[in-house]
């Protein structure tokens, strides 16, 4: 049995409500300070294939907190051994090209979106860059209507690089997650 000194509340020595655990009431919750407790994050979202880009473009117009949405330009498979961060072909939603090192400079969170396992090499280049900069890298595998085997390929393509990996059945998880992360 535990050996702890009993310190039950003594009604003869009342504590100010706000200075003990009893303050966990709805009334006291009103006094939680109303100042912001964080500054805007810089989120970088990378769509690794056409399916992921399509899902991503559906939401890029929403009001985000400065998130950057980027797509991998399809120029065939990327060999991570020979591809420098600066050489990864990336594009902004308006079609202009983007530079991975500039995009990750000062970023707080990197999210990889994939619907196929085809771009493991590009995932590695991005994740490597995030790793060097100590940026959290999350992978989101979108599996709507796909077989288990093909979802596995997507997941496996990102497993080595992501600190957290999510296998979502529906694309509507993208905005749900980005909103939750204040992207």
């Amino acid at each position, binding site marked *: 049995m535990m050996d702890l000194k009993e310190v039950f*509340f003594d009604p003869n020595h009342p504590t100010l409500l706000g200075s003990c655990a009893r303050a966990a009431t709805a009334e006291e919750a009103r006094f939680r300070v109303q100042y912001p407790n964080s500054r805007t994050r810089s989120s970088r979202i990378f769509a690794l294939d056409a399916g992921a880009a399509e899902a991503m473009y559906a939401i890029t117009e929403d009001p985000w907190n400065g998130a950057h949405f980027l797509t991998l330009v399809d120029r065939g498979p990327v060999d991570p051994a020979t591809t420098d961060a600066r050489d990864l072909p990336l594009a902004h939603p308006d079609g202009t090209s983007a530079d991975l090192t500039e995009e990750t400079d000062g970023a707080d969170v990197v999210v990889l979106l994939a619907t196929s396992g085809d771009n493991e090499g590009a995932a590695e280049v991005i994740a490597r860059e995030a790793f060097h900069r100590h940026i959290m890298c*999350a992978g989101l595998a979108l599996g709507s209507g796909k077989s288990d085997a093909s979802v596995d390929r997507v997941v496996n393509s990102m*497993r080595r690089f992501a600190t*957290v990996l*999510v296998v979502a059945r529906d694309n509507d998880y993208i905005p*749900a*997650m980005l909103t*939750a992360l204040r992207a």
Partner: protein
Amino acid sequence: MLRKEYNDLLTQTDPGTSMGDMFRQYWVPALLASELAENDCDPVRVKLLGERLIAFRDTEGRYGLMDEFCAHRGVSLWFGRNEEGGLRCPYHGWKYDHTGQCIEVPSESAESGFCQKVKLRSYPLIKVGDVLWTHMGSEENRPPEPAWEFANLPPEQTYTSKRWQECNWLQAMEGGIDSSHVSFLHSGSLKTDPLFKGAKGNQYNQNDKKPVFEVVESDGGLYIGARRMAEDDHYYWRITPWVMPSFTMVPPRGDHPVHGHFWIPIDDENCWAWSFDYHPTRALTDKERQAMIDGYGVHNQYVPGTFRPRQNKDNDYLMDREAQRRGETYSGIWGIAMQDASLQESMGPIVDRTKENLVSTDNGIIMARHRLRKACEALRDKGIQPPGLVPEHQQVRSAARVLPPDQPFKDAMKDDLTVRPGVKQTSV
């Protein structure tokens, strides 16, 4: 963060609310069977999903769960006389059977049939395992009886407790799927708690404090995998299942019994934290059972005669700063259950999720909220039944295992994560 409209949607469960309707689709634990231990025993007040009810067991052993207040002038039937096949209001003697049907109004002649016209709202109450379950939704949609493994094993293999938690059900439940807090909040207890300590897996926990998470949707909810480094570049995996709306399990350690929880709304500012322990293939030892009774593991100690924890907000949870400094407990609060409850209650009755700053490792929580919201809206807008109602969704287990690096847990551990009668849990 979560928008206020969704926070309201998920946290409000009174009658007429969307989440309340969703909870009313399920069989939910209402009482420990031991609370109504024998025929004609004392009635028990029960508040669930914002409804005040009275539970009793009649002369023939039938369980009743109904509106707490007499239809005549509103007296609480807790004062009632449980006698001769019904509960009689002590004020003017109206009597009700276990279905809430009024069977006697002494002032009126029996021939008038007046009592036929009076019926209290009632819900079925069934015993499965050492728990009495109720279904508060419509009879047409009554799901199959609870098929959870812990409730369907011989009594010597299981132990269940419940405690009152003074906050909304969702923030309590989110603790159950938030595996990233274990390396911090419970780090002291992993080494000392008799129901946790001594497992090989604990060393992996201690050695690698930065687990990598994988969240995978299942038919009934989610599997949340936490991966840590083991020997030879292998991974030590701990998998937490969540089944909608509020069933969670803790990954096992060694041959210790497996445990888990149900998080059931009492009202919007209070919930029942149900905690169960079981071993799939052997009886619990006397020592294990005694440790559970003494409040170790996921259980707790009580204010005598109540389901309120002995450590509660009126005594600052018996905070012990010296134990905190020594590292015996990470937060200074004794016991795994109260380490969680103290912090969750400190957030306030319904935490303001618009102020949160979630990070990627919170994806289990983000996904659970997302699934709940979608299921809730599908039920409200299209009448679609939510996941978690059928036995197949309930046949889940938590598991812990060391795997080679190239094997996804959801395939390699498929069998480990499913109930296999007569087969031991998969654990390290």
